[in-house]
């Protein structure tokens, strides 16, 4: 099928198209430079056209989502939408049902989402959930930062063995890249403890976060994976943690990049939670300027923000000790789980309120990070959904970024606590994002950071993943019309995925199966076999399941997108 999206105002930062009125042509699911006279014309005259959104960090599939739904039935009561047309019924606000997740991303004009924390032991179930989510492609990141075998390799600095282990494990669990969560802290939580900073050793293993981050980054570059290490640093949510954050980024400075499809060697996730000053919650202040300054001076770093949206939400993370801290802080119910040799996890409901000084300053820190990082290719739009707020709030965050007036109103009208003025610099920042920058932080830059060369842009040969919004960029003033910005970014005029119209006028009109994006590293087969032979005695001794039952078989990913990488050669 051939289409012409006619006369839209196109923003495609990857291809340096900044608000040009032009046609976008696509055929058989790809962007093309010409179509026949039979092509169907979709008139989008003067409307905003971008590549479909790419969410670089969200929690949408896996066991923690299931636990979240099970123990928060009160959340499932919110966001109920009856079945309509092609869609099934939707439930949930911060932890939506699987179909609702796909529909809601689709309505916002998104086409790709990275599931940011997949415990390898629970990978089968994560893939089952991905299969239940329609309309978006999903790349899951396996958790490696507290894996027993990896802790051993890192301690002994066996980078070759570590690379072979990662290579094999990505294939085994059909994962995309390397995720670290509170390295060594998750293991310490198995002993009822946590680690603080980079040099606090994990119990028994006697290895530090500094060693684990460095080793995994070296292994990542040795393999030439399409994404860099994806780091949730230590000390999340602790006052004064910006020091750990900056030290963590410095660790990677001298590690050479081995990839042509990305610019960074470390991706720092939900940086808002890691940019705190002070020593306790009383003297807690923003240290966003320091963290942003470091990122501005170091182009090997990218980050996503994890913007607080001031909602009642559900926090869920592999950072088990942090969740326990949170539970002690708010006294609300708490779910906790230990994933055998691999990771911890926890879930706690949380109510972010504009009346609370700490929550308000957290809100300000997120916006400071967006506004103080000069290069939009280094900072991506996320709410660490659902931790800082559900992903359906992205349009609201966009409206905050595009309107200094709205931010000022919120501060002056006391929609947020007055502490924002005293403990952050937000009120002094008048920068406003333009549509090109919004396109950068929500599609082009995340796609680049993940090495997704086939999406996040509208160049010839790219997937025809396109979003059209009922916004006329040449007529609207986003600074004044922030409500319209939020409304229209929330309900796309068209969402096109692989050349098919999935959303029209904000309604899902077609439901298609999701694809699973995973990385297959080739070229280390003999080293992998040697590594597996060496770990098998420990695997059989400590895991509660047989190795034969651990693997994610092909039938778990009926719609794979396999990214092939030749070990040691830069991915192109």
């Amino acid at each position: 099928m051939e289409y012409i999206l006619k006369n839209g105002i196109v923003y495609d930062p990857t291809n340096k198209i900044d608000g040009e009125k032009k046609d976008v042509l696509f055929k058989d699911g790809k962007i093309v430079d010409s179509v026949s006279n039979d092509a169907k014309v979709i008139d989008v005259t003067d409307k905003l056209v971008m590549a479909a959104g790419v969410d670089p960090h969200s929690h949408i599939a896996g066991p923690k989502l299931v636990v979240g739904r099970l123990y928060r039935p009160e959340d499932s009561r919110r966001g109920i939408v009856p079945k309509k047309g092609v869609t099934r019924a939707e439930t949930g606000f911060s932890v939506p049902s699987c179909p609702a997740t796909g529909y809601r991303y689709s309505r916002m004009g998104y086409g790709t989402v990275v599931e940011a924390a997949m415990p390898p032991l629970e990978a089968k179930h994560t893939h089952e959930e991905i299969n239940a989510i329609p309309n978006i492609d999903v790349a899951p990141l396996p958790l490696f930062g507290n894996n027993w075998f990896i802790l051993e390799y890192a301690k002994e600095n066996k980078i070759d063995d570590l690379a072979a282990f990662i290579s094999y494990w990505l294939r085994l669990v059909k994962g995309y890249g390397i995720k670290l969560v509170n390295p060594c802290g998750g293991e310490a939580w198995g002993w009822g403890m946590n680690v603080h900073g980079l040099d606090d050793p994990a119990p028994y293993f006697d290895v530090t976060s500094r060693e684990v981050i460095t080793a995994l980054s070296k292994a990542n570059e040795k393999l030439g994976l399409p994404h860099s290490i994806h780091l949730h640093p230590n000390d999340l949510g602790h006052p004064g943690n910006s020091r750990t954050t900056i030290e963590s980024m410095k660790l990677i400075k001298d590690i050479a990049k081995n990839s042509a499809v990305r610019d960074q060697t470390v991706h720092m996730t939900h940086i808002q939670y890691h940019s705190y000053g002070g020593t306790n919650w009383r003297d807690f202040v923003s240290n966003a300027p320091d963290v942003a300054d470091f990122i501005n001076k170091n182009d090997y770093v990218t980050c996503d923000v994890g913007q607080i949206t001031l909602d009642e939400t559900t926090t869920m993370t592999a950072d088990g000790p942090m969740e326990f801290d949170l539970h002690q802080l708010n006294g609300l119910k708490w779910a906790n789980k230990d994933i055998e040799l691999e990771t911890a996890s926890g879930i706690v409901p949380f109510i972010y309120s504009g009346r609370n000084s700490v929550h308000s300053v957290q809100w300000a820190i997120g916006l400071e990070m967006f506004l103080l990082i000069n290069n939009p290719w280094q900072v991506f739009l996320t709410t660490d959904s659902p931790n800082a707020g559900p992903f359906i709030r992205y349009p609201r965050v966009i409206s905050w970024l595009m309107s200094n007036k709205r931010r000022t109103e919120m501060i002056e009208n006391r929609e947020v606590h007055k502490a924002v003025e005293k403990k952050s610099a937000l009120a002094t920042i008048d920068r406003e994002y333009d549509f090109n920058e919004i396109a950068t932080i929500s599609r082009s830059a995340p796609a680049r950071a993940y090495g997704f060369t086939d999406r996040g842009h509208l160049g010839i040969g790219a997937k025809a993943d396109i979003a059209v919004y009922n916004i006329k960029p040449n007529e609207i003033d986003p600074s004044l019309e922030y409500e319209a910005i939020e409304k229209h970014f929330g309900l796309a005029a068209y969402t096109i995925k692989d050349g098919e119209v999935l959303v029209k006028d904000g309604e899902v009109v077609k439901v298609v199966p999701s694809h699973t994006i995973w990385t297959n590293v080739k070229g280390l087969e003999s080293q992998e076999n040697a590594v597996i032979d060496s770990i098998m005695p420990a695997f059989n001794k400590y895991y509660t399941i047989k190795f034969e039952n651990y693997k994610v078989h092909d039938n778990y990913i009926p719609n794979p997108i396999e990214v092939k990488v030749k070990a040691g050669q830069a991915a192109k």
Partner: protein
Amino acid sequence: MKIITFNQKKTSTIGLEFDELIPDEIFQWEEKDFQKYEIPIGNSRFPLKDYFDVDVVGSAESPSDVKIILNGDLTRIKYIGTKMSTGEIVANSSVDLHCGSEMSGGEITVNGNAESYAGREMTGGILTIKGNTREFCGASYIGDWRGMSGGTIMIHGSAGKQLGECLTGGEIYVKGNCDILAGIHMTKGFIQIDGDVTRWPGGQMQGGNIIINGKLSRLLEGFVDPEIITNPEIEGKQITGKYIKYVGDIARNGKGNLYLDADKNRNFL
């Protein structure tokens, strides 16, 4: 004032869901609108006119001008007055589940018994039950830690288990007896029970006040520091009588107050 009277024609074995028929939604409806309306029953909708004749008398400029009267056997009518914010509903029979749940204002009178979940998570208004009610009256829905937070529930008969569970505000009065765990997990609010109470009122309560004017069979160990007080003033209300006052539940570092009629419960001293 607009008076809308529903006279039942036939009953259903599956519950009819009345939550769309509240003053907020139907204050401008005329008889022809009710003729067209289809009511949810299970996973389907059926014509309301098959089940009720509806008479409309008078007019209303706002939902607060509406009084709804329900006549017939209402024991399979669920969600009466759910989420209503104003106006009045009178049910002249016993009613099914969820009566007055999540209501934020207005007044509901049930001239009979109310099944479980009456007044759950209500935030305002007045719910009067002239008969008995069963479990989870004024409580939270499953999973939530915030139950009724405002308004008043008046029960002329007895109440079932976990009355006012997770209560965070508002007042509940029970003239009859009450089953176990009244006020469990409550953090604020006021419960007064004039009859006997089975067991463990106030379990894990962290705040608020419970008054029991009847006999309590078993008290939780988390209620401590008993003292005899006379004619206490509680939340601005002058209560007459001699009470044993406990503080608890210390299992949750609670600072709630439990008042037991001193004469009927002297076995706890």
